[in-house]
């Protein structure tokens, strides 16, 4: 498997995710607040990135089995709103999201159970 998918996550969709999830942390929606916290701008909810990855790979690969889901995610670097992010399959049990510097921002594994 070598599925690759590149996306940019807009502030509008982040705001919508905040409404759906109830996670209204301003670090995701208020650029001034995010900068005060040491970031370059608003960052995407980790759970939203995970959701995007899961939905993409569940449709395009056999990474996911809906009926017995177990996922472990690590949020290693922030994903910025508007930043180009690439999802790719590392192996049959691990998918990652990388930024334009080729840094892994999120890795998701599906352990054997």
């Amino acid at each position, binding site marked *: 498997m070598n599925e690759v998918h590149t996306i940019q996550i807009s502030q509008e969709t982040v705001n919508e995710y905040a409404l759906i999830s109830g*996670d209204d942390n301003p670090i995701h929606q208020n650029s001034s607040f995010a900068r005060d916290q040491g970031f370059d701008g608003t960052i995407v909810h980790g*759970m*939203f990135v995970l*959701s*995007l990855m899961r939905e993409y790979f569940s449709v395009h690969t056999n990474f996911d089995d809906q009926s017995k889901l177990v*996922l*472990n995610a690590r949020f290693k670097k922030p994903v910025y709103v508007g930043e180009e992010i690439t999802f790719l399959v590392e192996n049959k049990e691990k998918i990652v999201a990388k930024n334009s510097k080729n840094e892994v921002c999120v890795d998701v594994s599906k352990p054997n159970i």
Partner: protein
Amino acid sequence: MDFTWISEGTSVVNKEILFSEEDIVRFLSVSGGEVSSYMHEEALVVPSTLMAGKALGTMLGETGIPKGTLHTTQKIQQFHSVSGGSNLIMEAIVTKNKKRADTRFLTIEIRLYNHRGEKVLFTSSGLIIRSESI
């Protein structure tokens, strides 16, 4: 709510959460999912990441965990499917609460139960609260 009372072993939230069909459709719209993938016997089932995300968002709101908190790890394990329109009971428990310098490291486990009392979802979230002045 004053967040500083939280300690290891504390149950911080015991709350009912509705996962509506509207939630599912809106969630799939923003996350790139396909409604057809979540149709089961002509009813929508709730994506596990929606359950986990909404439970986490609810927990953060209920506990008063400071704005600016960072999410570092997430485990999700689903045991049963849940139909849209269901109310689930959320139980959130702090399993780790360590403070180093001005940073606090929290692990919060969330369990969601259906109306039959069955555990449908388990999540474990690692959180970092920086520059703690609370």
